[in-house]
């Protein structure tokens, strides 16, 4: 196979140690234009041209952007039967002409074509709207002259642990320092302790630190003060919450189905499973296995089945007129896009209609990958409209207390039913008494035959005790039962318990569940057309160019007593999970390590967090990424340890201030000579306002919550029509993670801060800056109420004069001690508004009544309103929502 030629050429490790960055750049019209090696466009402006050209770093990006669409992996679209993504293809003798003649640019047709001025000859052709820069042409020439050596793509090469260069105490710093030294760029100094405490708290828990925590950190002069802070944060349940936000974007978690009526579903037990998994620092291999195939594990626990709901996270539709077959195809490709995005950092979804244009994924790979999920029982079109429990396979999720309650009820029900069969002493006693009484009564001369008693019973009663046969006794027993107060009490209890049991079950979350059934037939769909049944039938397989999946999971599967795993020799989701985290899988550890780096620096070592393929970006520090990936893979997939490793490096702890030198040499911070600075995510914006004001409810897990939302925001939802009911009480002040995720109409305060709809896998959120964000922070009642709480807290704890109060307020929210000028601005505002509200007490009363929490007594409305203005100011500062 040509793919083998392409991707097995050389060990990445060797070339990485030789190279320091020397990219060619060209200035056009004052703008520095990237020539090769995406990234350090200005950084290397003053560097000499590259001495050694490397295919993967220098050539592949040029080919991928300009050539592969017609001369790449997609056989269907290949022109002139020429492919440039393999050495064999590029150097093949084509009737005496070779695209590439190694070592001889002038003899290479490629060289001739890219330099041609004839529109009918030049490559890329004018109609492609692509063109090569002079620098790119030069690089291609140099590469051919140097022997036109092909290399494997960095992300697909075997992962091998690199040597850690000398030079620093911390391995991460060794790699960073080596590169900085090579570039001759000095590193920033360490961040001050306040900034550092705030940064690491936000990164690891999503919450700014309390001032007392900062104080404690500043006061702690022990050498391991920072490490202990890190460990404390990592052990906090809020750390698990923070990681969960990140993961839910990837797996596209939502509380509604997404398509058409966007009906609500219960999925939050899965979200809580993720929280619990991070809290327990579940190794990533198990984390992977339980989500992809928890339901197939032997004796799968409830938790494992909940984790497997990952497989039902796709959007679903109950739209009238939709066809099952079409939607089965939609759901299948949804899963391929998501799963390849989450774990492989790959765009396998591009291969639905044709072989991938840039990466060696074939259309067949797309469908064999989809076939792993063919056993997931589901409908195409659901009849869930208006019925929130109608989404195919569902699962009740009792709490541990409910499990106990349920067991107790069931035990008692069994007892009561058993009483029906047996003759317990209390019943015997009652019967004996009844027989005695009735016999005596009937024996009285005045008593005629009793019409309530059957003849046989009367006859038995009239007999002497010793004369009663077993049949007589049986008659008496039977009849007594019909009139027994004891039996009636049992019956009543039984009815009550059965009602209670039903109620208890109905009160339990009924979540969308993954249940394995008979696998659907999966065909390669020509051009992705679900109506075309002409394609080959395929079974589950991993992408052909990657290391082969081993059926390591088969023994477990065959011994599985429950569930119905796919039959025979077919690979299952268990096999897929095992393959993902097998030693041979080159992508998963790289993708994960890169994303962890991004969690700590705001950008990955390769910045394309969603694509590690040819169209992605070569990592800025390839060896560091390899090392981090190996730490994960060879370190029991310990995610928390990797995070700890990254955040304890000097690189992490650096200041994010930008010096003139860094601004000039490395404006995009590709070398990590400094830390990054950026707006925090939507959830954290909410969390910051709620936590610094003291409103935050620190409850972990549970059903999603509904904060205030403008009336009418859901007006265009239908089937059924819905009106939004905000929560009451403490649920109004939960973390952003728990906000109800309506995929079609996500809460507007989340949406404007770039939270994704989660219809698709999101590996990287944009960070935009819009007037709508300002409107939310200024006017959303949630933030106004937070300002009120902050004002109250300030009046209670912040001293008695305006300056002290202003200082308190700024310190609470920003973490640092404010300068006098800042304090002055805030105090001035508060004082001016105190006067203004004194002249407009009604306005003050309105101001202090925004939000559902009770209006505080004992504070003058005018004073509180004035300090709400100050608090609103602080809760609108850039710094409040910036991670420095």
């Amino acid at each position, binding site marked *: 196979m040509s793919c083998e030629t392409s991707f097995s050429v050389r060990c990445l490790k060797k070339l990485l140690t030789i190279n320091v960055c020397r990219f060619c750049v060209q200035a056009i019209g004052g703008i520095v234009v990237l020539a090769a090696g995406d990234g350090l466009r200005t950084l290397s402006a003053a560097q000499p041209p590259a001495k050694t050209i490397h295919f993967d770093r220098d050539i592949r990006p040029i080919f991928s952007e300009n050539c592969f669409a017609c001369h790449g992996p997609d056989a269907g679209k290949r022109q002139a039967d020429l492919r440039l993504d393999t050495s064999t293809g590029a150097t093949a003798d084509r009737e005496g002409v070779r695209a590439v003649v190694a070592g001889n640019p002038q003899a290479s047709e490629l060289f001739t074509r890219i330099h041609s001025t004839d529109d009918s000859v030049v490559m890329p052709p004018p109609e492609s709207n692509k063109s090569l820069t002079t620098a790119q042409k030069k690089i291609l020439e140099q590469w051919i002259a140097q022997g036109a050596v092909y290399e494997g793509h960095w992300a697909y090469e075997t992962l091998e642990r690199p040597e850690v260069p000398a030079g620093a105490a911390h391995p991460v710093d060794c790699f960073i320092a080596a590169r900085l030294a090579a570039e001759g760029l000095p590193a920033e100094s360490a961040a001050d302790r306040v900034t550092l405490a705030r940064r690491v708290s936000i990164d690891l828990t999503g919450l700014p630190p309390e001032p007392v925590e900062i104080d404690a950190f500043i006061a702690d002069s022990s050498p391991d003060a920072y490490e202990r802070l890190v460990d404390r944060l990592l052990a906090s349940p809020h750390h698990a919450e923070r990681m969960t936000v990140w993961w839910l974007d990837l797996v596209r978690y939502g509380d509604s189905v997404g398509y058409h009526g966007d009906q609500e579903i219960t999925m939050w037990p899965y979200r809580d499973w993720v929280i619990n998994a991070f809290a327990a620092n579940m190794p990533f291999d198990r984390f992977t296995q339980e989500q992809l195939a928890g339901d197939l594990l032997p004796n799968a626990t409830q938790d494992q089945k909940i984790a497997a709901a990952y497989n039902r996270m796709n959007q679903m539709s109950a739209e009238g007129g939709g066809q099952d077959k079409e939607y089965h195809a939609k759901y299948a490709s949804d899963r391929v896009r998501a799963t390849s995005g989450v774990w492989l950092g790959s765009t396998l979804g591009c291969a639905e209609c044709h072989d991938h244009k840039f990466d060696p994924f074939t259309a067949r790979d797309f469908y064999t990958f989809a076939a792993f999920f063919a056993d997931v029982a589901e409908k195409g079109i659901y009849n869930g409209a208006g019925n929130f429990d109608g989404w195919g396979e569902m699962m009740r999720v009792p709490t541990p207390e409910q499990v106990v309650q349920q067991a107790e009820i069931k035990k008692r029900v069994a007892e009561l039913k058993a009483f029906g069969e047996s003759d317990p002493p209390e019943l015997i006693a009652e019967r004996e008494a009844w027989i005695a009484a009735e016999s005596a009564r009937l024996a009285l001369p005045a008593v005629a035959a009793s019409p309530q008693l059957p003849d046989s019973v009367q006859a038995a009663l009239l007999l002497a005790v010793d004369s009663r046969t077993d049949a007589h006794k049986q008659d008496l027993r039977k009849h007594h039962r019909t009139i027994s107060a004891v039996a009636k009490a049992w019956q009543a209890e039984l009815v009550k318990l059965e009602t209670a049991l039903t109620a208890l079950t109905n009160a339990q979350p009924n979540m969308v569940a993954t249940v394995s059934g008979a696998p659907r037939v999966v065909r390669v769909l020509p051009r992705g057309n679900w109506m075309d049944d002409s394609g080959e039938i395929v079974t589950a397989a991993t992408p052909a160019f990657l290391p082969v999946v081993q059926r390591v999971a088969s023994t477990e599967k065959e011994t599985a007593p429950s569930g119905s795993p796919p039959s025979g020799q077919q690979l299952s989701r268990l096999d897929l999970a095992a393959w993902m985290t097998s030693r041979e899988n080159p992508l998963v550890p790289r993708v994960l390590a890169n994303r962890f780096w991004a969690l700590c620096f705001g950008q990955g070592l390769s910045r394309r967090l969603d694509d590690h393929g040819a169209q992605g970006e070569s990592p800025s520090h390839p060896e560091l990424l390899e090392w981090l990936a190996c730490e994960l893979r060879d370190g029991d997939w310990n995610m928390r340890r990797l995070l700890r490793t990254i955040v304890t490096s000097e690189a992490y702890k650096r200041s994010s201030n930008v010096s003139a030198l860094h601004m000039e040499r490395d404006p995009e911070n590709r070398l990590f000579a400094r830390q990054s600075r950026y707006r925090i995510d939507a959830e954290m914006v909410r969390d910051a306002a709620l936590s610094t004001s003291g409103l935050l409810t620190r409850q972990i897990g549970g059903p999603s919550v509904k904060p205030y939302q403008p009336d009418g925001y859901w007006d265009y939802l239908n089937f059924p029509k819905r009106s939004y009911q905000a929560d009451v009480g403490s649920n109004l002040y939960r973390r952003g993670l728990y906000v109800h995720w309506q995929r079609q109409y996500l809460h507007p305060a989340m949406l404007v801060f770039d939270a994704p709809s989660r219809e698709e896998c999101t590996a990287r959120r944009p960070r935009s800056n*819009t007037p*709508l964000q300002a409107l939310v922070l200024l006017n959303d009642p949630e933030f106004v109420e937070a300002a009120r709480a902050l004002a109250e807290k300030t009046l209670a704890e912040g001293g008695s004069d305006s300056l002290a109060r202003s200082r308190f307020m700024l310190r609470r929210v920003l973490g640092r001690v404010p300068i006098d000028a800042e304090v002055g601005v805030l105090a001035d505002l508060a004082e001016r508004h105190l006067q203004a509200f004194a002249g407009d007490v009604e306005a003050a009363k*309105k101001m202090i009544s925004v939000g559902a929490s009770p209006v505080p007594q004992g504070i003058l409305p005018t004073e509180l309103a004035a300090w709400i203005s100050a608090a609103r100011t602080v809760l609108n500062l850039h710094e409040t929502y910036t991670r420095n």
Partner: protein
Amino acid sequence: MRHAPQQNNLARRAFLSQSAGGLGSVALGSLLGSGLVHPATAATSGVSTGAAEASPAIWPGVIKAYHVPPKAKRVIWLYMAGGMSHLDTFDYKQKLAELNGQPMPESFTRGQQIAQLQGQALKCFAPQHAFNRVGQSGQNISEIFPEIASRIADRIAIVRSMHTEAINHDPAHTFMNTGSMISGRPAAGSWLWYGLGSEAHDLPGFVVMVSTGKFGQSQPIASRQWHSGLLASRFQGVEFRSKGDPVLYVAPPAGTSLGRQRDVVDAVARLDTMRGDVVNDPEIAARLAQYELAFKMQSSVPDLVDLSDESQSTLDLYGTKGGDGSFAANCLLARRLAERGVRFIQLYHRDWDHHGSVKDHIKGTASEVDRGAAALIEDLARRGMLDETLVVFGTEFGRTPMAQGNGRDHHMKAFSIWLAGGGIKGGVTYGATDELGYGVVENPVTVHDLHATLLHLLGIDHTTLTIRAQGRNFRLTDVHGHVITDLLV
């Protein structure tokens, strides 16, 4: 520490390309020196020194020079949501009337995708309303649109040969708006805002309004239809509402006068600026610009929806007093938005899903939009704005020539729309369906073609406006689309 302006500029480019996911580098190189300088660029270049370039308050657009001479500055898209029957509006079929009640010939339907009529006997269902030849052009328009027929027939180009790839509302809307059925691609309005920026300085560049009629079953509309998808969320369409705040959170909180709100914004600016002096963060200036814009919106949005400055004759023209959330009121607001330079204005009327009683219901729904649409065209024309405004009157799909009871099912093989205004020929009909109105037989137009034409009229080559994401370049027209030159002046 302080830095020279030159260094800051350099850094801003970097921030631009970072913060918008690589937007900044798009198409710069290829456009330089081509001479087609985009006016928004010219207008803002003089003031775009300073940090505004990091995340400019007024987005100038990535297109620095038009690819082709633009014919229109903006788009108003009147979206008949639910699937407007072409057979009862703009595409009369005599043969269908003749075959009314008879089996639909299988030659049309064999192997074709069908929605709710799956497994049912398919019978022809005549056009439910008479059509008239109207205007000097003799356009053939259903009697259910008396205003459109009598007032603007000669200004519109009817396209009878539209077809789409989705047979149900949700995916069909998504396809019509984003060029893909896969969620997460930018809507056309987001693309235009991203590409050209907006001339509205205190309003969003992409505004959406929704009205709901009384004669259909009010199919849902997802906010996905105006989502910016792969583009940064600043390009998301902003919904203007007829109830509550016209824009979410635009009103200051209770007890806060605009003056006191101003005080807060000023204090924020002073504190942010002080901090900016310490940390040298260009994003601070960008953020302050957004606060200014937000503050302006607190007056500009109420001003926009306040119709007291409209003349009685204008209100009569539209047949609305405003404030009622009607389609006509939204049409008037659309004109006001257009006057203020908003780039893309989209009006949904959510009532065209006529599975039953199509005769009565489509007449009712048509009456809800007829006057407003005609008035909008006339109003734009008399103000000299029609020539620079592209108006689209469209829907997500058509309806079956086959009966569904006394209604019609969804139909993706053919439907009708009309276009008017900047760069569009008036009084013409383009394309044709077969004798039963089932499939397109002449000049087929895809959704991608419509998008390509729309971009073309605004000066953009649809193959060039791209965004790099998920490992490839995305564009509104995917890898398809041809400009329908026959429709152009």
